[in-house]
């Protein structure tokens, strides 16, 4: 269908639209018109992504003179794939209705690991070794050597790509990673470098958060994006955590050992160069004197991760004189490693600010703040000079330099915590030095400054006024939409007691109580016998999940559960988890369905949908609080209290509940879908906890469902499933429209829209 929103003709690839999608688009359009940032919360299952995509592409189409670029950030690669396939659908529709004028170039961008098609490179174990293997074939010095000596291997795909130079472009279309690889294979071009190049020219770019938020990556990928861009962070409820993670580093004993090895290796290389090619080192020195940390523009294949500090904070100065010479720099690094090693010997937990730390480095190791700050760039330059291609071996020293640069650049919003052992295992010494960032606004600040519109959207952004404070920006539009429902297709329940009427909770004192474990197991057992197709269970942590599943196994509960459904479980190994998920889906497609055990805050909870028959019920076992004794968390809470006057308890509850809401929100995809959610913990019945749940869940949470025991919950589930099996009118009942057609929209006009919400 197509319709007008003010002056923009929106092309929407379906015959009908939900009213909240329409309202969402209207708000979004206003934000784009105002060239400002916006914050939009819309419940899951209302087609947020397609609304976003169709409005922004239509907006760009309606202003051909001043085309805006559209940067869509997802948290994960699989979400990227999903978004791109929705975009494909939309693009096909637009092509049908507008003809070639609607042609756009849209592509996803990922790392070499996911894009490389060179079989020898891509077979490497992990991302870093793929990167290194690629560099070994494509670094400028390797290619120079190969030009003289044909026995040195190069990558034919990269060579072909280089040879075709300006001809190597992608024709318009929507490219998923798979399509990019296929196209690369067809043309014999390297898809990774092709995509990196095309990002500058594309109308729509879909990539992961960190390509904008993490300065290390953003520095090389997103440097040249134009200001007239619309940046969207989808599923952004965790964006503050991503931001602080982007600027945090931790150093362990292994890191220091590795770094020492790296330094030794570099010093050997320097000696070798001195003997054979002293000119090169001298050239580097001269360049540094001129104030260039790096050669003007590096070939794309040489580019490594950029400076960990934000671009605006990096001083445009020359590298200080005392680390210009390679061997001097190495000795600085040696002293720094030695100093950190000394600090790790501590027997007590230490916590200090960056300023105190820098001062102490200065007095004890003779390294001043400026030297620290330039560590990373200096290292990068040195590695290029030494022509080191196996970058995966040098991650340790890179970590040290990242740390040095960050600690030398920022004076506030960070703290340094040294712990000699893990709180939970005091008998095992595992010293760690953590530089943790508390200020989420630091990392995202350049994004807000650089781009004219930044859209932050998710299914759970409540309380919506908290995010502008955490991220320190002023949205022109900040709205939360409710879901208009045709029928009560979600059924949240709070389960407080087991079938024996004893309370259930994952509170610390009740957590390992066998009675609670048994009650949780009995709950699941009841549910697997009632609910068809898929059931997803979320636990508060891996260790808790392992423990409880093992105990269910020992008591035979698991066996009984397995008589109803297959059981899959998330593990820390992503390959295994992915396969388990794939099998879970297969099991839900046929037969009696399956149960998936997963962890709140885990990888599955972050981005896998359990819509339709893949999830008819989610059980959230416990409240997913963060580990409250963690020093990092305590430091962050302290910072939040001091800066934003947010109470610790409030923040913890907010954080736990947004995770819980996120977990249970994965069951609904559209209004035709339906699902139940069980919050199995007595603490959910308390008002202060419950009220932090997003509105769309609260509005369906009836008072009668607030204090249930297992058998009552099973009864409600049966009733609910029976009700959902009845036919219903999709377009809504009792005068309240929940599905709008083109004609409805025309009739309504823009004027009376407000009344509907």
């Amino acid at each position, binding site marked *: 269908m197509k319709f007008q929103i003010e002056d923009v003709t929106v092309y929407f690839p*379906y*015959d*009908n639209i939900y009213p909240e999608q329409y309202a969402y688009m209207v708000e979004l359009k206003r934000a784009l018109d105002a060239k400002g940032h916006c914050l939009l919360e819309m419940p899951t299952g209302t087609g947020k992504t397609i609304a976003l995509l169709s409005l922004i592409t239509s907006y760009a189409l309606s202003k051909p003179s001043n085309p805006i670029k559209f940067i869509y950030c997802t948290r*994960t*690669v*699989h*979400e990227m794939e*999903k978004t791109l*396939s*929705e975009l*494909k*659908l939309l693009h096909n529709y637009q092509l049908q209705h507008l003809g070639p004028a609607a042609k756009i170039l849209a592509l996803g961008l990922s*790392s070499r*690991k996911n894009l490389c098609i060179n079989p020898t490179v891509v077979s490497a174990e992990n*991302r*870093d070794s793929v990167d290194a293997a690629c560099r070994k074939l494509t670094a400028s010095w390797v290619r120079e050597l190969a030009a003289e000596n044909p026995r040195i291997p190069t990558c034919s795909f990269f060579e072909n790509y280089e040879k075709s130079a300006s001809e190597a472009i992608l024709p318009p279309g929507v490219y998923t*990673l*798979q399509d990019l690889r296929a196209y690369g294979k067809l043309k014999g071009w390297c898809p990774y470098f092709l995509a990196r190049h095309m990002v500058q020219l594309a109308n729509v770019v879909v990539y*992961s958060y*960190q390509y904008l938020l*993490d300065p*290390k990556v953003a520095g090389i990928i997103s440097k040249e994006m134009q200001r007239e861009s619309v940046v969207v962070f989808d599923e952004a409820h965790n964006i503050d*955590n991503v931001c602080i*993670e982007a600027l*945090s*580093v*931790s150093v*362990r004993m292994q890191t220091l050992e590795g770094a020492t090895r790296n330094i030794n290796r570099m010093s050997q290389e320097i000696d070798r160069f001195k003997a054979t090619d002293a000119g090169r080192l001298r050239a580097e020195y001269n360049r540094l004197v001129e104030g260039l940390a790096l050669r003007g523009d590096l070939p794309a294949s040489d580019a490594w991760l950029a400076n960990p500090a934000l671009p605006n904070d990096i001083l445009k100065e020359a590298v200080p004189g005392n680390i210009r010479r390679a061997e001097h720099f190495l000795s600085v690094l040696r002293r720094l490693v030695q100093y950190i090693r000394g600090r790790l010997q501590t027997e007590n937990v230490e916590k200090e600010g960056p300023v105190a730390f820098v001062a102490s480095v200065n007095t004890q190791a003779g390294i001043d703040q400026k030297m620290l700050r330039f560590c990373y760039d200096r290292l990068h330059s040195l590695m290029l000079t030494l022509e080191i291609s196996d970058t995966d071996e040098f991650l340790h020293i*890179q*970590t040290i330099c990242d740390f040095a640069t960050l600690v030398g650049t920022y004076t506030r919003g960070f703290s340094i915590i040294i712990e000699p052992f893990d709180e*939970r295992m005091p008998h*095992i010494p*595992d010293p760690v030095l953590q530089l943790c960032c508390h200020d989420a606004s630091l990392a995202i600040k350049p994004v807000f400054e650089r781009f004219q519109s930044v859209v932050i959207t998710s299914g759970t952004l409540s309380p919506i006024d908290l995010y502008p404070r955490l991220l320190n920006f002023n949205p022109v539009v900040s709205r939360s939409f409710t879901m208009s429902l045709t029928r009560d297709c979600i059924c949240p329940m709070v389960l407080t007691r087991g079938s024996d009427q004893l309370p259930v909770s994952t509170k610390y004192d009740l957590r390992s109580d066998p009675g609670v474990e048994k009650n949780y197991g009995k709950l699941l057992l009841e549910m697997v016998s009632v609910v068809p197709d898929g059931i997803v269970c979320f636990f508060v942590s*891996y260790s808790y999940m*392992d423990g409880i599943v093992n105990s269910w*196994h020992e008591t035979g509960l698991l066996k009984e559960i397995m*008589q109803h459904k*297959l*059981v*899959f*479980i998330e*593990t820390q190994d*992503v390959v*295994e988890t*992915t*396969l*388990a*998920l*794939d099998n879970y*889906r*297969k*099991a839900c497609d046929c037969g009696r369905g399956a149960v998936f055990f997963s*962890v709140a805050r885990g*990888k599955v909870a972050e*981005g*896998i949908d359990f819509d339709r028959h893949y999830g008819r019920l989610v059980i959230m076992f416990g409240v997913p609080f963060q580990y409250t004794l963690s020093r990092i968390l305590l430091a962050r809470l302290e910072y939040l209290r001091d800066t934003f006057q947010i109470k610790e308890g409030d923040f913890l509850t907010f954080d736990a509940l947004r995770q819980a809401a996120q977990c249970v929100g994965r069951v609904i995809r*559209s*209004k*035709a879908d339906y699902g139940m959610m069980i919050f199995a913990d007595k603490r959910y019945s308390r008002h202060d906890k419950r009220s932090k749940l997003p509105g769309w869940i609260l509005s369906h949470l009836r008072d009668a469902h607030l204090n249930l025991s297992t058998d009552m919950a099973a009864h409600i589930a049966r009733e609910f499933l029976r009700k959902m099996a009845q036919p219903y009118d999709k377009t809504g009942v009792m005068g309240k429209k929940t*599905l709008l057609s083109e004609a409805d929209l025309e009739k309504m006009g823009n004027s009376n829209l407000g009344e509907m919400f």
Partner: protein
Amino acid sequence: MADKQQQVVVKRARHKSSVKDPGTPGVLKLTKDRFTFMPNDPSSPVKHNVEFRTIKGHKFTKDGTKQALLNLTQDQGGNYIFEFENFPDRNVCKDFVASAIALSGEAGRTVPEKSAVPIQDEQLSAAEMERRIKLLQEDSDLQKLHKQFVIGGILSEAEFWATRKKLLEQNYSRRPKQRVALKNDMWSTKPLADGQSNRVTFNLTPEIILQIFAEKPAVRQAYLNFVPNKMTEKEFWTKYSRAEYLHSTKNVIAAAAEAAEDEELAVFLKQDDMLVNEARKKIRQVDPTLDMEADEGDDYMHLPDHGLPRNDNKDVLDSQYEPYRRSFSQHLNQHAAVVLQGRVIDVELGDTRSVAEALARTKHAELAKDASDVYLDKERLERISRMTEIEDLQAPRDPAVAPLSIKDPRDYFDSQQANAFSTLGDTVSGAKQLKCSVSTREAYCSLKECISEIKFQGLTEPTINSEVAFKVLNGLAQNISSNKYHLGRNPNESVLDSLPKITREELLLHWSSIQELLKHFWSSYPITTKYLLTKATKLKDAMSQIYPKLQEIKESVQSDLRHQVSLLVQPMLQALDAAFAHYDADVQNRSARSGERPNGF
């Protein structure tokens, strides 16, 4: 099974009058139609010589239980219990008995002297034979027909089956029998300790072994490598159980220590490399919207030591013990995956080695196939695009219909065919005389006439008069439904119900035999060889034998039912009449042409 029929199986066994009875040792000899038991002590009174056709069924104990028993139940209620020395012996006998009973049952108790499968004039593979026998066993009607015609000598075995090729194929390739899935039950490694001694016992049955092999390819591989060259089966499983026991104690360090001493044990204790490799292959096939591995590959935020450490630290363990760590969750996932895949092999469970080999083969084939499947890729893409659509925002893409599932298409077409005969018989055949020898010119002229007629009148639109079409369809539909009655597939509403049982069965039997005969009869035209001629004659004779029987039935029933019966019989008679008429016409033609009369006419 076919070759087993020729065999004689001789095994040592004890005959027991009850399960508790110590039994009489002796020799059990099985031939295809009877079994004999000779006690070792010739003076013992326990001697048996029993025909299989008197045996109603057989029961046996599960493999791995205390005694290897086989219990043959007799028609009249008596039973024979034999205890064997070991399970393989018992299983051989069990299989043999099973087939022998089936055969004797198939041969029909009324014709005991006939062997089930008559001498064949073609070479048949054992599998083919087995298939046929199975079909006969499953379908008593078919069995009756087979008995009547093949054993009665009217049709040869090959002829009988030639018309049922489809049935044979269908039963075995397209419509596999529903197979029993693996049990969704993890082999509980909880050992059974008896509390007093330090002994721990594990219980392994062939089912469990299959499961272990399927879930743990490394164990399977080890079995193929070690048994029987390096160790006996028993040693192998003892070792395996020991490893499992070590795992169940969750003492990684002890496991590592044991593994260091015993390299075969280490195979079980270490992580399963084959699984890891398999996982790496499979991950490439995974739906990209699920692929979290790709996600990890894109995550520069969590470079080693970057970002905030996850709260869930793994417990610290020396790297040397790392290979010995095995998590329960891993096992859980693997188990569910195997169950989901279902029973991939079709091998008798008793023989451990063949089970292992078969599993290894299928795995191998599967992985080889995966590597080069473009089709899968495409399917996956389609699936994704289907998944991305929000279904309730648009009209359903395909009309919401379920595919029509005709339970057995054969029923439908058979009835159609019979129908055609009956209608042809009374309407068309007499009405129009077809001119067969037409010259080119004549043909051309008539075509021309048709064309000019159409030119003159214009094509009727629609081409077929709707009334006529309706009539035809109606007639067909009615015929089909009435045919259903004849076939008696739908006994609830059938007139057949009102008939006495004997009459009904007789009718049905005749009906099916007529069908069979007619099928063969018509398929032998045009007669080109002598063979076909004799066949047609034979068939005609057989049919003419049935003809009076039908009349008899008609007369024998009570007067109130006579009308209905005659209605039922009428189409059969008509069909037969048509066949006779055709036969006579053909014979006359033949004699007119060659001047030579076939035998008997």
